């Protein structure tokens, strides 16, 4: 009955598409009821009621049982409890009070419930208390703090041997009347208990609690948001606390994870503020589908595909960012990285590339949190160009404005001699090196972020509201991003056993002039990077001529004046996004829970791109207005129960069903030639066209999961999932739309059986899982379309597909085996977490590139086999742990060996991306790691000599793979020092074994900027060729010259913090922290001469770079305090 109400609610929320899903939901509902019914037969309870079956058992053992079932802590003196009689008790679903009554009936002890603690004391004491005259009581005040000096709310402060106890308030303060000589016992879940003797001198106490030696009870968030004790998890989970992302922050929060999680390969994209982040977990596991993880926010899946360009010709478009970059790091409580398939099995097809679970904050106390962060940003010049020769050609100094204009971007002129020389604008200036063009052009950028969050607890619930504003000024002139975000989280219990968690995150983002990438036209990055050695970028600063046309410096109209590109081009994206979720959970008396969840991620993007009037290559201008409406609706239901088979064995079955509908409606209005110049709106364009790009996907899933726990030492988990994909449907064909796949994983806590002194915790884990995957919609049918304009009234029809559709698609499968261990040694001073995995993907749905002579750029095929094997490890050591000084150092690292095992029959390579240079590619090649950087080698004759053509230029030989674009080894080294109230942390990280195709170096050859072009600059080559012709030919033919090692070690992050104690502010402020932060401080090692080894310009084809925003270092401060 309840479920019906719940789902009705969900349907109402779903609105329009509701009726479509109704049938489905009713079906799913029936399934859940059926399953629930068959489970209920054997159900024993969990929750607020207790079930016990004990005969002659010690009270302590019974307490442990109750604690496990109810979460209540017991508080007692050991010697007291030793007096207790053994008990026999058999109850089913009895309330706690009733059980306790039965247990204590025949004892000399009694109890009292204080908060979540059951305090045990002697019965006599209570009786004797009455007749005695009360001794002089002292008012003891105090404050309970944790190791960081933050108040501990809800800690129990009791007087030993009495029933008297109080709980600390929001600020950690307590007040209790006690007698001199009595002992205060202070306890809190997860912390070690402390005792303090009451005296007149210490009536105002500050008590600091330390985290208990109880790693065993650490809880991690796993798939479907289920919290599990770490020891029960059979796969690798890494958690990152929100605070690690907020101090030294990045506009795209994912970039802040770089170097922090073993097995996570994060690559920021050189696209300026709020550009995408390329996140790869455990290597590339799909040949052409997404390799980005699934992001799940508070249980609701959110896709975050980078809206980058695919790495084809003319990619002078901005990177439009990814969905994850919209999140405000201040709202993040934890980020949980689920790496293996066993971990993600319950997310099914969407979790194939791993899952990143993000839990946002909810209120934990009555407080106001304020966080303020400012970081400034300065460009770093990655180039090492030649500054011997100036602008010109043929070692010839321009002798007129026309010649200089014609020499354009070329630095094949004469030796720089400091003498006046004609420049493009007719002004004669000294012929000298201009080494500072980058720092002259790029300004000091900055990001100012302010967040305020209000937290309130109320009876039966809590509410948190946070508002945040981010203002970013990019280092690229006239570019930046603003973001306002509002986050509301409410959780409450309207009825007993029913909890409701509702959240809404409203995000408004205005990205102004995201910079172009790759190719030169309209791209300020490209054009400032390749300015001739003797042209000062500031001489171009006026940007426009008096007639409004571009103030050009080159006869190549596509060499856009960088100032004109930055100031006159328009490239704005406005995003209006609402992420909402409602999670309702009902727990029956017998412990059976039912949960229903609805999540909706919806955004509207409005993109406006304008090539302005006067642009040299498009004098009359053009405009592109794109409106994208995206909704991703997820509904799921889950039912589960913990069943107890005997003393040691519990079984937890869970069943669920989910429904997903993802729709995109995109309308693009394009126009060229503005009727009234300089008025940039679509209606002012003379020639207009419109295009519609819809997308629609539905997936239904059912799944079940069974977990066995044996004696706190052995855990086993098995799951099965069945997905149905609309994207596999072909009208007129009855093909298989679903895929079923299992997972098993287990964990063995060996420290339960073997616990030498040096071993605090030890666990072995293993898992195996299969994940199915389908594809994007509309890839099964050939579809025709019309161009927007007509030819003198005649419609222009064509084929819409650019890839050959496939009407026989089937879901692909990937499997993964994982083993690992986790250990805490020497009283937790050392912790080790190691995993090894082996992943295999088969029968991938691939958009396999085809020869364009087939008419298509590719074909949608079920092909290929890809494998990844690797090891990842995290070792953390605390060498020093003293009062007031501690040092923790941790190293995480991973090695991933990736291999393409097979492609389509008879096919040995599959192109991925093409550099703008036209002679550098990335390909998947059978027998090699994925995304090989491929280029033309020299051609050698039989004697091994380089073959040259008639003019003396080396001829290109075979197209050869030089290595994967993805790093093989990734490592991060983190250090944290605490010195009194100061804390210092720094991170050094590195990647090794990856390659990058440096198109920047290619253009360095073409334009005569590269130092290699200095060799024999004034002489002749081969058959009398000059240097420019020779090096241009060489660059065109021998592209292997531009394949570079992308290895690097960077000093990534430094944070120096100071915590002010609350009393400094009269406890009005409950603690404030000021931090100085810096990111990307130094490159300690790189092997690329003229580029940043991380300068990829698209997440979709790693290994290609050109024309991106140069690297920058950021530094600033973070202030956070709590009221």
């Amino acid at each position: 009955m309840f479920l019906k109400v719940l789902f009705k609610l969900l349907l109402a929320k779903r609105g329009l598409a509701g009726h479509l899903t109704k049938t489905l939901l009713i079906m799913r509902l029936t399934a859940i009821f059926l399953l629930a019914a068959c489970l209920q037969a054997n159900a024993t309870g969990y929750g607020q009621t207790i079930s016990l079956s004990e005969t002659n058992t010690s009270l302590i053992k019974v307490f442990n049982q109750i604690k496990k079932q109810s979460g209540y802590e017991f508080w007692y003196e050991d010697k007291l409890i030793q007096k207790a009689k053994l008990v026999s008790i058999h109850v089913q679903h009895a309330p706690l009070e009733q059980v306790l009554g039965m247990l204590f009936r025949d004892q000399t002890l009694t109890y009292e419930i204080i908060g979540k603690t059951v305090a045990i004391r002697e019965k006599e004491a209570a009786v004797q208390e009455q007749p005695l005259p009360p001794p002089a009581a002292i008012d003891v005040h105090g404050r309970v703090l944790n190791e960081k000096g933050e108040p501990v709310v809800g800690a129990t402060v009791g007087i030993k041997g009495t029933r008297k106890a109080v709980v600390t308030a929001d600020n950690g303060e307590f007040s209790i009347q006690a007698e001199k000589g009595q002992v205060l016992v202070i306890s809190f879940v997860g912390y070690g208990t402390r005792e303090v003797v009451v005296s007149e001198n210490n009536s105002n106490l500050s008590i600091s609690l330390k985290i208990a030696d109880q790693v065993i009870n650490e809880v991690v968030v796993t798939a479907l948001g289920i919290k599990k004790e770490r020891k029960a998890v059979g796969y690798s989970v890494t958690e990152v606390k929100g605070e690690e992302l907020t101090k030294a922050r990045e506009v795209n929060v994912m970039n802040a994870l770089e170097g922090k999680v073993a097995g996570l390969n994060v690559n920021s994209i050189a696209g300026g503020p709020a550009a995408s982040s390329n996140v790869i977990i455990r290597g590339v596991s799909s040949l052409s589908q997404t390799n980005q993880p699934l992001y799940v926010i508070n249980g609701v899946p959110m896709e975050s595909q980078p809206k980058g360009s695919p790495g084809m010709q003319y990619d002078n478009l901005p990177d439009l960012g990814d969905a994850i970059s919209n999140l405000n790091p201040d709202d993040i409580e934890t980020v949980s990285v689920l790496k293996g398939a066993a971990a993600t099995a319950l997310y099914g097809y969407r979790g194939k590339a791993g899952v990143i679970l993000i839990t946002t904050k909810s209120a934990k106390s009555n407080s106001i949190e304020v966080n303020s962060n400012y970081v400034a940003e300065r460009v770093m010049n990655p180039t090492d160009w030649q500054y011997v020769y100036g602008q010109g050609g043929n070692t010839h100094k321009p002798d007129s404005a026309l010649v200089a204009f014609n020499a354009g971007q070329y630095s094949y002129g004469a030796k720089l001699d400091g003498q006046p020389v004609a420049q493009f604008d007719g002004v004669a200036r000294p012929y000298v090196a201009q080494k500072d063009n980058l720092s002259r052009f790029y300004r000091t950028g900055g990001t100012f972020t302010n967040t305020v969050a209000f937290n309130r607890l109320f009876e039966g619930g809590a509410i948190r509201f946070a508002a945040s504003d981010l203002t970013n000024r990019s280092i690229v002139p006239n570019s930046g991003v603003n973001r306002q975000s509002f986050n509301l989280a409410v959780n409450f219990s309207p009825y007993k056993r029913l909890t409701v968690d509702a959240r809404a995150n409203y995000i408004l983002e205005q990205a102004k002039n995201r910079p172009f990438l790759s190719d030169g036209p309209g791209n300020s990055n490209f054009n400032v990077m390749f300015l001739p050695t003797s042209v000062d970028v500031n001489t171009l600063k006026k940007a426009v001529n008096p007639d409004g046309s571009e103030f050009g410096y080159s006869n190549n109209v596509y060499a856009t004046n960088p100032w004109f590109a930055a100031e006159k081009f328009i490239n704005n994206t406005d995003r209006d996004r609402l992420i909402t979720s409602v999670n309702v959970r009902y727990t029956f008396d017998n412990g059976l829970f039912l949960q229903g969840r609805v999540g909706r991620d919806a955004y509207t993007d409005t993109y406006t791109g304008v090539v302005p009037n006067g642009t040299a290559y498009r004098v009359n201008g053009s405009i592109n207005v794109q409106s994208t409406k995206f909704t991703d609706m997820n509904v799921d239901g889950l039912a589960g129960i913990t069943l107890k088979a005997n003393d040691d064995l519990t079984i937890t079955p869970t069943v669920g069903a989910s429904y997903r509908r993802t729709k995109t409606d995109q309308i693009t209005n394009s126009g060229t030639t503005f009727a009234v110049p300089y008025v940039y709106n679509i209606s002012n364009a003379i020639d207009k066209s419109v295009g519609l790009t819809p997308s629609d996907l539905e997936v239904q899933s059912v799944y079940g999961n069974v977990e066995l726990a044996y004696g706190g030492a052995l855990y086993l988990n098995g799951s099965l999932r069945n997905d149905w994909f609309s994207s596999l449907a072909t009208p007129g064909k009855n093909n298989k739309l679903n895929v079923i796949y299992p997972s098993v994983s287990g964990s063995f806590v060996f420290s339960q059986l073997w616990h030498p002194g040096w071993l605090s915790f030890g666990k072995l884990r293993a898992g195996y899982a299969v994940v199915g995957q389908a594809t994007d919609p509309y890839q099964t049918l050939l579809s025709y379309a019309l161009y927007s304009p007509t030819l003198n009234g005649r419609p222009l029809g064509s084929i819409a597909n650019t890839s050959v559709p496939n009407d026989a698609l089937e879901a692909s499968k990937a499997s993964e085996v994982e083993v690992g261990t986790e250990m805490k040694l020497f009283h937790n001073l050392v912790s080790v977490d190691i995993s090894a995995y082996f992943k295999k993907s088969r029968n991938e749905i691939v958009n396999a590139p085809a020869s364009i002579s087939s008419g298509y750029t590719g074909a949608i095929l079920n092909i290929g086999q890809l494998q990844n094997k690797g090891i990842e490890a995290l070792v953390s050591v605390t060498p020093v742990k003293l009062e007031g000084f501690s040092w923790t150092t941790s190293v995480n690292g991973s090695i991933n060996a990736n291999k393409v095992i097979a492609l389509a029959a008879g096919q040995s390579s599959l192109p991925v991306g093409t550099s703008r240079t036209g002679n550098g590619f990335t390909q998947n090649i059978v027998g090699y790691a994925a995304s090989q950087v491929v280029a033309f080698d020299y051609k050698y004759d039989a004697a091994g000599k380089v073959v040259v053509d008639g003019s003396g230029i080396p001829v290109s030989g075979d197209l050869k793979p030089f290595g994967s674009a993805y790093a093989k080894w990734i490592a991060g080294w983190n250090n944290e020092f605490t010195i009194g109230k100061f804390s210092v942390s720094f991170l050094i990280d590195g990647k090794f074994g990856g390659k990058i195709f440096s198109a920047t170096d290619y253009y360095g050859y073409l334009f005569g900027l590269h130092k290699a072009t200095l060799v024999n600059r004034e002489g002749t080559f081969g058959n009398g060729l000059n240097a420019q012709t020779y090096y241009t030919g060489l660059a065109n033919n021998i592209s292997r010259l531009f394949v570079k090692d992308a290895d690097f070690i960077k000093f990534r992050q430094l944070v120096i913090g100071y915590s002010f104690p609350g009393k400094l502010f009269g406890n009005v402020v409950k603690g404030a922290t000021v931090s100085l932060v810096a990111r990307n401080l130094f490159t300690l090692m790189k092997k690329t001469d003229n580029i940043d080894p991380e300068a990829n310009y698209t997440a979709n084809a790693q290994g290609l770079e050109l024309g991106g925003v140069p690297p920058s270092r950021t530094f600033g401060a973070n202030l956070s305090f709590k009221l």
Partner: protein
Amino acid sequence: MTILVKMRNIFTGAGVCLLILAFMTGCTKNYDAINTNPAGYSKTNFEPNYILTTVQLAYTGSTDFSYETWRANLIYCSTLMQGFSSVVGYWAGDKYILNPGYTASYWGFGSAQGPPLGNGGDGAYPEQVKPVVDLIQFTKDLPRYKNLCQIARLMRALVMERITDLYGDCPYSEAGLGYYDKTFFPKYDKQQDIYTDLLKEISDATSKLDPNGDQPTGDVFYNGNISQWQRFGNTLLLRVAMRLVKVDPATAQTYAQQAVGHTMTGNGDNAFVKADATGGRITINRNSQVLLGDGGPENVYTKWSKTFIDMLKPVGDPRLAKIAITHPTWDNSRNPLGGNDTPAVQKGMPNGKDLSGIPAQDISGAPGYTSIADYSSPSQYLTKRDGPTFILTYAESELLLAEAAQRWGIGGSAAQHYHDGVKAAITYLGQYDDKATIADTTAENFVTAHPYDPANGLEMINTQYWIHTNTMLDFYESWSNWRRSGFPALVPVVYPNNNTNGTIPRRFPYPVDEANTNPVNYKAAHDAVPGGDNLTGRVWWDK
């Protein structure tokens, strides 16, 4: 005991639940509808005539900013043939310098977006071959599109002939069949085989045209006039046949003979596509877009070649006044306004010059240099944004017949065909613009004054053919006909650091992208080009 029973119950329960999951069926009834693109059409509701219009338009150049027209037709072919000349730095063809991206442009490359937002790629394979092959497959079994299908076959022949003329061996029999045959890596057919098949295809398709059948509504050449299509088919057959005079004269003669008597009969049969200036870059005249400087300084620096003007001016060719102007001007939207069209002031710009400031190379050092604006530009009639792009003309037809008559004595008098051809090549200019019309008598007088001389027959015919195709701005055809005939005799430019040892290029190298996407077939073809896969290698018929 009870525990064991209990456990067994639990396990059985859990097992049954999982089994239920595995055998559940999803509610997937509406999945076909969900997975059908609502913005697209299927074969059952689409009109194939619309594809024909696109094919005819795309043959005039890419819908994406005249992609290959700019690079292949203008930057390369027009300057190699000394029809145009340019000092714009990237006009590599003018200096016999290889720009592999430009020479690959005609072949084309793919892009991720198809119509309506994109074109699926720029160049011949994605924009011409793909739709024309689909059109044939679409219509071949539908009697109501009988003529449309034959026209599609003729269009395919037209499209493929130009590709093979530029590159030699190339994907032909398997081209464009990615969807129908699942051929994703087409083999490169030998040019000889391609030509053999083209001749058969054109003959067969032309013979199957039925004047009583459908009149394709998408046809912008002839508005569905089947008789005109029959004459077009035979004229195309003649042109394809004559390509083989060097390498296989017997076949050339056989098919020329077959065409005789069935070719075009007047300028009214000229096939052309009239552009539409209101459709933006998708429908604007391709050559005009470039020559008006929409994408670069071509309007200022691209001129008629000295070689070309020197061919017309001394003989008082009446065409000069209509096709050439000095000091061109444009309105604010860069529509051509005209210039000085006085024949006496016309002056062609020498090829192989630049703006480097180096005396031997710089245009300012050329003999007789006064100013850039004093050199002749293509006239405002030839560069109208909504002007026609000529595909195949009566004048070409007559000149080819003149050559057939001269070589083999077939199809009547060479002198008569020459007379008719040259005359038509003068009078057809009126199809550019009424104001470009040259009176019939003026043309007649000129032709009469410069009669055919059989002694120099082939040179006269092919020089006139060269002049004519240059005025059509079909420099692809100028280059092909020059390569097969050797006329006119052009003097190569002398420019340092060229890639051809100072000879006029004979072929475009294969696109490097094919090495990436079609590696096996590419390598075989790349290694088999006589003279190497470069600008100086040769196609089969250019032995």
